């Protein structure tokens, strides 16, 4: 089990999370290579189907890295994303799939350290859950 390297997809807000990524880069901190990033202009644009598709394609975990609740440039994008992540958690539960395979993180532009920690935390969590699809 411990050789298992989960494939994680991260939807990152191009305003806060991506700036945090730049800060992390400046700190010489890199994301694990099994975390793939999809940048979005605002996490509010991420639909439920966007969150399900990676699982269909074999991802082991998905997370959304967006703004703090009160600092979305588009007012309430992160609130919308939070509701959709919650809905997908419910859908996964209904399918007898661990809801922890999807998660939302609140970041901000300066939080380079937290940006990397979120990715590592997700990798560890999903690693403990095991592969999404049967071998």
């Amino acid at each position, binding site marked *: 089990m411990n050789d298992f390297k989960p494939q994680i997809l991260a939807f990152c807000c191009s305003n806060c999370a991506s700036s945090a990524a730049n800060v992390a880069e400046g700190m010489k901190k890199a994301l694990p290579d099994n975390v793939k990033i999809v940048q979005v202009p605002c996490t509010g644009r991420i639909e439920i189907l966007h969150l399900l598709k990676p*699982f269909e394609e074999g991802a082991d975990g998905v997370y959304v890295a967006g703004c703090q609740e009160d600092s979305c440039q588009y007012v309430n994008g992160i609130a919308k994303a939070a509701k959709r992540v919650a809905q997908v958690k419910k859908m996964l539960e209904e399918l007898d799939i661990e809801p922890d395979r999807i998660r939302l993180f609140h970041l901000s532009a300066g939080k380079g350290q937290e940006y990397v920690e979120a990715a590592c935390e997700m990798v560890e969590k999903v690693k403990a859950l095991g592969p999404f*699809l049967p071998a």
Partner: protein
Amino acid sequence: MIVAQPKPIKEILEMVKDKKKLLVVGCKGCVTVCNVGGAKEVGILAASLRIARKRSGQEIQVDEHTLERQCDPEYVDELKDIIGDYDAVISIACGVGPQFLSERYPSTRIFPGVNTQFMGGAVEHGVWSERCAGCGTCVVHYFGGLCPIARCSKSLLNGPCGGSSHGKCEISKDVECIWDTIVRKMTEQGRLTELIEFRPPKSWTTARDGGPRKMIREELVK
């Protein structure tokens, strides 16, 4: 619009457990507007089915198609060249859709993917409320533009009943007593006395009590 909600995914999975090639068919009418059966929801249901079957090690092909409407034969016909390729079809239109598909394609198994709820409207984003019971003889103008048949728990035409309390219905604090609202509105409009005018009992023969209904408009029939 006709308002519906998705069937539990486990119920749908049970319906199609022995099927290997499915078509999920949406409708661009009412169920698109109430976010339950349009192209987006077709994609979500299809993805959920594929994920569930992949997880259980039983691969499945699930294709997606959304019709302009499932309650008009000319649009239902659109499936004629492809429907034979599938073991079954899941319709996520209101209850009319799967029946029109079943009638047009009698040799194909058709499953409903949603539970049809009521005729109503969106009172706010994501919240729908019943407004019409389809009784066949509209009387809302007698009641301040509000329908006691659809909106009173007892469908009373001479309410409110003793279960009305502080504007709420006795069945739940979340349910408005529509008779309370009707009386207040008629009072505000200076029309309260209209509520005590004698009217003969409503005929329910135009509602479901008269059996399944059909409407023919001669000027439109070809």
